[in-house]
């Protein structure tokens, strides 16, 4: 069994490291300091930590002002509230204004469990990837999330970082590379390409192992940066295997799988004269979440290793 940790915990540690590295790094929270794991930063750098109260519109616009006078603000809340509630403020004062504010959307996806549909943000990738100037990142595990925090602190663009509450398997290590805008082939294969973002990559890796016993060779591509996409890595794999599955803990409409589909179609990877090629998105299909344990919910909505295996075998029939 792999070691478990949450991406929010990893990011919280990474933020401390980023604060040590750069004095311009500051952090803001909206009454969810520990939930978004900013307490580590707040304890280490109390003079660079700002509490704004339950006010997400204020959170991001204050951050925009701080960026305007030279700082790199990390503004943390739940994804359901930021960017859920303050999308227009982000659009006008951060994206259009091109300020290097880092919006941390924690507790994204179904895995917040008992809190229910209101808190299970499944639309944030769609909301943020349509925004010009915005970079969108969903780290795969806690170790990668630490590196994401450091990379974002060194990036002068507006960034959205999507984090999860629940612990999930660690599949990377300290030496694994992370660069904004890069996708990583974690496992080579020839029959099907499985593109995964965020913590879904661990499920895809487990599925690949099982598929091999059924003589299906799956290539696993981890795509932590949803925008801008690493077109070369994605197209190379898609052209090699010809069959594509995407998986995300998000609505399939407008999300990560949609972004991959757009890229493949526009590059003629699915040419009309090649009907043998198949494409399937795994994600939440036009529904809200509900209360339950994370495991129950992921199973109910089909975000499991078993479902990846089932869909891969169907595709390759």
């Amino acid at each position, binding site marked *: 069994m792999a070691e478990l940790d949450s991406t929010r915990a990893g990011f919280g540690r990474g933020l401390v490291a980023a604060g040590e590295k750069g004095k311009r790094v500051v952090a803001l929270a909206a009454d969810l300091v520990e939930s978004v794991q900013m307490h580590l930063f707040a304890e280490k750098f109390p003079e660079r930590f700002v509490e704004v109260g339950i006010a997400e519109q204020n959170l991001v616009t204050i951050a*925009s002002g701080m960026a305007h006078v030279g700082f790199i603000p990390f503004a943390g809340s739940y994804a359901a509230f930021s960017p859920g509630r303050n999308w227009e403020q982000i659009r006008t004062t951060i994206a259009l204004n091109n300020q290097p504010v880092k919006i941390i959307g924690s507790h994204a996806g179904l895995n917040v469990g008992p809190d229910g549909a209101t808190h299970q943000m499944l639309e944030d990738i769609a909301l943020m990837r349509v925004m010009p100037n915005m970079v969108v990142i969903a780290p795969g595990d806690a170790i990668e999330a630490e590196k994401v925090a450091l990379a974002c602190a060194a990036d002068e663009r507006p960034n959205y970082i999507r984090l999860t509450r629940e612990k999930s398997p660690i599949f990377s290590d300290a030496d694994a590379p992370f660069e904004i805008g890069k996708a990583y082939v974690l496992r080579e294969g020839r029959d099907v390409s499985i593109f995964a973002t965020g913590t879904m990559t661990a499920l895809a890796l487990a599925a690949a192992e099982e598929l091999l016993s059924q003589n299906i060779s799956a290539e696993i591509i981890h795509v932590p940066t949803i925008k801008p996409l690493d077109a070369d890595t994605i197209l190379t794999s898609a052209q090699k295997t010809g069959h594509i599955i995407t998986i995300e803990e998000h609505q399939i409409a407008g999300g990560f799988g949609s972004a991959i589909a757009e890229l493949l179609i526009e590059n003629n990877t699915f040419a009309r004269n090649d009907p043998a090629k198949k494409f399937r998105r795994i994600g939440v299909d036009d529904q809200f979440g509900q209360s339950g344990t994370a495991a129950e919910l992921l199973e109910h909505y089909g975000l499991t290793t078993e479902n990846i295996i089932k869909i891969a075998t169907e595709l390759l029939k």
Partner: protein
Amino acid sequence: MTRGRTTLGTTVTSSPSQLGAIERHALCIRRNVIRMLATAGSGHPAGSLGLADVFAAMYFDILKYNPTDPNDPTRDILVLSAGHTVPAQYAALAEAGLIPEEELLTLGKFGSRLQGHPERQRLPWLETTSGPLGCGLSQAAGMAYAIKNWHSDDPASKKRYIYVITGDGELDEGNNWEALMFAAKNALGNMIAIVDRNHIQIDGTTEDVMPLEPLDDKFRAFGWHVQQIDGNNVESIIDACALARAETERPSVILAYTTPGKGVDFMEDDYKWHGKAPNAEEAKRALRMLEARDL
């Protein structure tokens, strides 16, 4: 290289002749606002005309800035929250020689730096991007907080002020009240808000659409230092900003009572001119009126 305000203190230093010069600049701003909106065929005349005196006072007395570097790290910052009044700011920038006067007639045209609503990325003399209302106070508060707390090693930071101009109607937006609490909690004495209290918004008068009164009491209850002035009187504006700067422990608000459409009699105090540009005939009448007045 400092322009505008050169001395700090609580007393007004402007002489009568200086005040007269600023009033003349305000009149030129009004004339150019009419020319710009008539040429563009769109825009917001009432607020732009009403704020001409505030903008003239800002660029010719109150603001400390470097005319050769909009990003000078020691400058004062003017945030325009009520982005739809930006024609008055563009005209003031031209009046101050920071952009060419000929450029004013490109307002809202394809390729122009003078977007219909202000965009910082296109014109660095603007400090923020605005138009969607209610976000200026919080951005200004972020700047004021950062300069107060994180630039404190730099002696120049003690002399920097963040001014923000908001409309009155836009105080309907909840984001403002979040910002007021934040500024008071953090004792942002380096932040000065000027509310363009002209009593109109698109759908009618502010008190009909969504009553704001008692507005001064609301600000006081939120922990702000409050002044109420005639916002079309240059001397009052300069005076009030000096008093606001002297208040170091609390953020300050100046409720500037202005006449919307000021200077053009058929526009004054009529909410229908909030967001409607004058046609050619109306512009001609307005300019005749503004040109007849010479200071």
